[in-house]
């Protein structure tokens, strides 16, 4: 079997880049369209249905981009570290490729969480930035993404780059609970969670609806973007493999 000849452990059919490539290609349009539709619905609810906040006025409407971006920034990191860990344990190339593909999108959402948070902080707290626990740990998350990408880019041999990046990703995962619980553990300017799994949300139902629609849109976008990127990575790394060299990449 070809996949075994090039060293993959065939745990599941789609653990091999060759099988995953067309599957990812077929999934991308679905996730991309879902992202677009959910984003349109979320923006509509956020700007035209949700009422003005009686404390923050219209400034609170940043929430519809800030909270989804912040959630994705943490969640993508956990998924990235998961694939990095799977790649280290089982030595599967596709897992490392997934981790690599997730990093830029995670960095994008981390930057957006910081940027929108800064623009929200100025009118509500009176400052663009404070070195408090929540903000600082989110900034560290951005540096972890950058570090992961820079480390992988700095090592020429892909498999060594994979392993080095994976170790960094796994060590950095300790930062995620720090970000999440920072508002409880330390006295910070940042407010606590408005939405939790255990209690009722402390916000108007339409505001929550807009926020959740935007969060779902961010999910769908992230999946579409990382699947798209992983296909490029597969093409780049498996260039010499028969199925690519012989043009059997479609559909």
């Amino acid at each position: 079997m070809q996949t075994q000849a090039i060293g993959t452990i065939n745990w599941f059919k789609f653990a091999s880049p060759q099988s995953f490539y067309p599957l990812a290609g077929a999934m991308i349009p679905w996730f991309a369209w879902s992202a677009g539709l959910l984003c349109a619905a979320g923006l509509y609810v956020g700007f035209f249905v949700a009422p003005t906040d009686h404390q923050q006025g219209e400034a609170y409407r940043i929430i519809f981009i800030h909270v989804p971006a912040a959630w994705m920034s943490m969640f993508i990191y956990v998924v990235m570290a998961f694939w990095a860990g799977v790649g280290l344990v089982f030595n599967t190339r596709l897992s490392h490729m997934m981790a690599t593909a997730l990093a830029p999108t995670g960095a994008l959402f981390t930057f957006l969480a910081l940027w929108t948070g800064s623009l929200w902080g100025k009118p509500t707290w009176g400052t663009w930035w404070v070195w408090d626990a929540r903000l600082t740990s989110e900034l560290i998350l951005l540096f972890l993404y950058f570090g992961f990408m820079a480390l992988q880019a700095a090592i020429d041999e892909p498999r060594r780059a994979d392993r080095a990046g994976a170790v960094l990703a796994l060590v950095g995962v300790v930062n995620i609970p720090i970000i999440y619980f920072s508002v409880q553990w330390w006295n910070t300017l940042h407010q606590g969670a408005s939405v939790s799994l255990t209690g009722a949300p402390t916000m108007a139902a339409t505001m929550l609806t807009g926020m959740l629609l935007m969060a779902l849109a961010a999910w769908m976008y992230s999946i579409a973007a990382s699947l798209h990127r992983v296909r490029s990575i597969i093409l780049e790394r498996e260039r010499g493999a028969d199925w690519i060299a012989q043009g059997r990449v479609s559909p």
Partner: protein
Amino acid sequence: MSWSSLNEFLAMGGYALYVWGSYAVAAGLIAVEVIMLIQRRRHALKAAKIPAGDAP
């Protein structure tokens, strides 16, 4: 709906800079990522010597 005119909507109750500054940068960066994704794929196909028309 909270708005009675387009100007009122754009003014965002005096928070236009902060609200639109957030959404504009988000939209801009996502557009940049999409363009980079498309370019990376184009380069990868070229390097693998696959004509763009052949690959979906």
